[in-house]
């Protein structure tokens, strides 16, 4: 599958997209693996204060909001495209 990063996540991961081949059956498994790979700065943008994921950032699976699918338990396939958008709040 392909993971696309936006805004400040591109600076943290030092890429705008990557191909992901490790077994991560669900979105939650993928986010766990990405947090392990990229560390606490990445984790800050994708996780929630009280645990879990998705409070600060938007996750799209093939262009669909993950909440309109099966949330963090959405099953992922090798052909999926995952997009992660952190908020941009300056003006």
């Amino acid at each position, binding site marked *: 599958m392909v993971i696309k990063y936006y*805004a400040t996540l591109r600076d943290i991961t030092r890429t705008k997209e990557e191909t992901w081949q490790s077994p991560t059956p669900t979105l939650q498994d993928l986010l766990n693996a990405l947090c392990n790979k990229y560390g606490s700065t990445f984790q800050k943008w994708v996780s929630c204060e009280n645990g879990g994921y998705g409070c600060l950032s938007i996750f799209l699976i093939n262009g669909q909001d993950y909440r309109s699918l099966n949330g963090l338990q959405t099953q992922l396939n090798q052909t999926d495209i995952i997009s992660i958008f952190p*908020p941009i*709040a300056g003006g």
Partner: protein
Amino acid sequence: MLNPEQKERYSRNIKLHGFGEFGQEKLLASKVLIAGAGGLGSPAIFYLTAVGVGELTIIDPDVVISSNLQRQIIHSTADIQRLKVISAKEKVKALNPDVHVTALAERLDESNIRRLVNTHDFIVDCTDNPATKFLINDVCVEQKKPFSHAGVVSMTGQIMTYIPGHACLRCAFEEPRAGTALTANDIGVLGAVAGTLGSLQAAEAVKYLAGCAELLIDSFLFLDVAHATWKKAKVKRDRYCLACGEKANRIR
């Protein structure tokens, strides 16, 4: 009714598909609140003035400083240390005498936002911090007022439009904890990126007020100039949203 000078001045608006003289009359009868006269606010103010919105209210407590000038194009070198709203008001009056402008040199906060949102037809959020952006969202949802949200930092930006019944900012993002969001002070911001997003905000306001063309609702547009990419992301309205969900309690 438009007078002959207005028919000439706004002729390129009037020719737009779906716009016409009726669209221009609606714009001239409209009141828009612009929160922030900085990087986003500068182009938004200029374009809403030029297009002929009848009444603009600009609110911003700050004075112009020299590091504003690489992006906040409504202000000039001679405006350093002057209130941004006074500087902006002068530019509006010089550009289009049809536009009545009110300059408020104060911070938009809990003490004034309900009155201001209530007395305007459309709100353009050009503020520079997440706390005020979420305050604008929550009060606009509460009062069923349409608004344009945008944010910029570094070479990236995002924009969405809210109209009642559709996804709001809080459906997409939770409010970042104080101090966690990156700002232009931390990592800079490219003026042309702020200019692009502020111009799009003006376009969203015009489309809504004139009643023509499609709005950027239930979706975000993300711009990344560093990688020369645009991405439109659909956002689902969250039925459990704290601001607009079915069982939302007043969170303010």
